[in-house]
């Protein structure tokens, strides 16, 4: 194993230079180090101005997603070893405007996420004193996988459609809409349908499947989208064949 490894880090300092550049750093190599540990080493010992997001360093917070050697990954879960012998190229997530260095502007995703109303919508609510809304293990299993999303946006960075059609509501937002649609306590499917059934909802997706391939939590957004397409298509043909039946 080498003593050191080279990192080529994407730098963008809009107040200093108009164009992004790559800075090369030589960092110590450790078997147990992740790419994020190497970035923290640079920040602590080489260049304190390096800007990037991270918090939990254990694959839960979803803030350290970056492009490493062209692949969108959580840098806290990507061993340096996997990229030997280097140099390792670290860039911000694709598809998002860069604010500075490795930090992107995520406003677009947050706005889209809000549009699908990712919370439980109920027609009738009961008073907390009346107790919880109970659910069987089977009812929970229906949506549990989609609830594992940590909003890391690797799926957006991997999605070629999101890059081509910026209006596309995107993999994570649709998976999270399905997370609530499939929840037995939720009555909001019709409200979400308004957003999801637009062309820029589910129909922009052409099932490339990269979103599911890069998801660190095995959420399978591509599967969520295809399932919604099947449901929406069945609904459409049903209302076409039996127009007298109100959906």
């Amino acid at each position, binding site marked *: 194993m080498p003593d050191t490894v080279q990192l080529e880090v994407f730098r963008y300092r809009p107040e200093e230079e108009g164009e992004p550049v790559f800075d090369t750093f030589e960092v110590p190599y450790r078997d147990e180090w992740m790419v994020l540990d190497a970035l923290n080493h640079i920040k602590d010992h080489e260049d304190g101005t390096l800007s990037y997001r991270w918090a939990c360093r254990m694959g839960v917070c979803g803030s350290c997603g970056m492009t490493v050697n062209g692949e969108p990954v959580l840098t806290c879960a990507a061993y340096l070893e996997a990229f030997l012998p280097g140099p390792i190229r670290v860039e911000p997530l694709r598809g998002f405007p860069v604010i500075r260095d490795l930090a992107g502007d995520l406003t677009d995703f947050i706005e889209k996420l809000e549009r699908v109303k990712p919370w439980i919508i109920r027609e009738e609510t009961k008073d907390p004193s009346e107790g919880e809304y109970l659910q069987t293990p089977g009812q929970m299993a229906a949506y549990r996988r989609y609830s594992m999303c940590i909003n890391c946006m690797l799926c957006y960075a991997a999605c*070629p459609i999101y890059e*081509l059609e910026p209006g596309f509501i995107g993999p994570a937002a649709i998976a999270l809409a399905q997370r609530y649609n499939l929840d037995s306590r939720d009555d909001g499917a019709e409200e979400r349908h308004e957003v999801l059934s*637009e*062309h820029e909802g589910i*129909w922009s997706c052409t099932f490339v499947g990269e979103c599911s391939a890069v998801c660190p939590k095995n959420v399978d957004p591509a599967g969520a989208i295809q399932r919604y*397409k*099947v449901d929406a*298509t069945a609904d459409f*043909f049903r209302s076409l064949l039996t127009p007298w039946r109100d959906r």
Partner: protein
Amino acid sequence: MRRARDPFFWGLFSAGGMLAALLLPALFLIVAVAAPLGWFGMTAHVDWLALVGNPLLRLGLFGLLFLAFFHAAHRFRYTLYDGMQLYHLDALISVLTYGVATVLTLIAAVVLATAG
């Protein structure tokens, strides 16, 4: 209108892809391999026309061809639309791809209707 268009064409696309994936390899195996090689007691000279004389089989073949044509059209449309990034030509591309599928479907209908 656009709300109805997406599920309509995607429905044809997905049904066509499913049927083609399930049935075309089997059809190919029977017509192009098993029959010429005389497998399963078939002779090299099966009277296909007489087989197509069965109205149920004709209807099935028509359904398969119709959906497979629209599957191909939809896939080709998105190859041009996203793959070649011809967003401004979407209307023209749609008319051409689904138009060709419609023409091929009509030809299939005529051929099958007159085959028996």
